[in-house]
């Protein structure tokens, strides 16, 4: 459903992505792994329209979205959870979630989705009136994911959901990511924590200095010697 074809992106004159190609199919979790600064976040930003590709095309359900502004891409159903969580710090949990449904007008359905997210994240349900800036890191990550779900995405882009979180919290976040996927939302997951990312995903791509150097099923990548040495520290 998402097809990225030979996309290059840069900031000013510096090229960051060199002809990236990748796909995400229905019902899949696809992960993009790689070390710091190889262009993983840039890839997600290019898909969600925050950056414009300098060449190449991005198709979503066979529609060319490579030159659309971000708000139109959200309306088409791609929801981006930015790195570093980016919750609205001075709004409450409830208000943050309501912001997520900004592009929607179906009030009854929004209420249902709100209830569903409260079920998915019981920790947030206890803190609906709390200001988001005072939540713990894990709770903020949950809130950011929940907020993205409020737009009823047809594709979820997750940027480093494990960043800065305690290992136990990371495990529970990834359990929830699997749950979301089981309920039918395809996910493109960017992670530095290759171990947990490959265990969660169906397929994976490995990025090095702005290029995709490997792609395979997640299981195969976990067994791959080079991946094991470079990213899994074995």
């Amino acid at each position: 459903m998402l097809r990225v074809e030979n996309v290059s992106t840069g900031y000013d004159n510096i090229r960051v992505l060199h002809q990236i190609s990748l796909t995400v199919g229905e019902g899949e979790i696809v992960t993009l792994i790689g070390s710091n600064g190889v262009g993983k976040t840039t890839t997600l930003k290019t898909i969600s329209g925050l950056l414009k590709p300098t060449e190449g095309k991005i198709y979503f359900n066979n529609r060319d979205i490579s030159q659309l502004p971000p708000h139109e891409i959200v309306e088409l159903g791609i929801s981006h959870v930015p790195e570093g969580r980016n919750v609205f710090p001075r709004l409450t949990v409830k208000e943050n979630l309501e912001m997520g449904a900004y592009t929607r007008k179906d009030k009854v359905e929004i209420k249902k989705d709100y209830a569903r997210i409260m079920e998915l994240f019981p920790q947030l349900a206890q803190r609906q009136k709390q200001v988001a800036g005072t939540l713990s890191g894990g709770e903020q990550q949950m809130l950011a994911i929940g907020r993205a779900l409020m737009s009823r995405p047809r594709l979820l882009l997750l940027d480093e959901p494990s960043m800065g979180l305690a290992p136990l919290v990371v495990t529970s976040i990834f359990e929830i990511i699997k749950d979301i996927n089981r309920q039918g939302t395809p996910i493109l997951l960017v992670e530095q924590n290759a171990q947990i990312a490959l265990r969660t995903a169906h397929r994976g791509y490995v990025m090095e200095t702005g290029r995709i150097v490997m792609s395979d099923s997640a299981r195969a990548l976990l067994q791959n010697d080079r991946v094991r040495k470079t990213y899994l520290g074995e």
Partner: protein
Amino acid sequence: MISPYYLQLIILVGINTIMALSLNLIIGYTGQLSIGHAAFMSLGAYCSALLTLHFNLPFIVSLLGGALFAAFFGILIGIPTLKLKGDYLAIATLGFGEIVRIVCLNLEITGGAVGLRGIPKKTTLLWVVLAVLITAFILNRIIKSRIGRALIAIREDETAADAMGINSTYYKILCFGVGAFFAGLGGGLFAHYMRFLHPKSFDFMKSIEQLCMVVLGGLGNMWGSFVGATILTVVPEMLRSVADLRLLIYGAVLILMMRVRPQGILGESPANGGFKNNSYSQWIQTRLKKSLRKRSGSDKT
């Protein structure tokens, strides 16, 4: 009935309230630090005055003409400065304010340094009261609507707002346009009350004064803008008897105020589009404190 002195004071309070309300939309709700608000006021003032003088249009038409003229420039300034944030936006709007002032000072049609004279007195208490009510009503409706939520989201975190599907470019231009429109309306009322316009009335200090009204009353609080405008219009008048000390006391009041209650007299409104917290002002407060601490820290080293 009311003595002319008090009448004038009430009318000025009204005009300043319109200025503070419209600036509050830009700074308090959308979080865009603009310090050239007096420029929009002067655009509205000159335009409406010239419409009255040269075309003898009905008052309401001149007023709306001035307001639309200011809104046009609000949108115009909004477009190139959209990518600027915080201090940089402040500098750009300051520059815009100076450009407008200097252009008014040098054009023939605005009367140049002599000023624009002979504007008929059309502003009455009724007009001002109506204008304040309409401004407050419309801005309140905007803030409590979807648009208001988008503006607050932009204030909170622009990247996240974009990711929510909010077209932040559009809303920022809209916010500048609407803010400038009402500033132009205030300017038109001012012109037809004072009957005389001079670029000096709309200098940088005027913009700062309007900023003070918004901050004093409370950022993101409609009633706050009214309170701030009232205090900062009435207090300088009361201090007129101690003319020499006037600015000194005025300054001391402001410093004391920022020290004791930096979130403004009323703080953030509990009714701003359902966002029931006062944390925006708290955030500003911590940022101010931090920067002060940083400065005093670097002094020691």
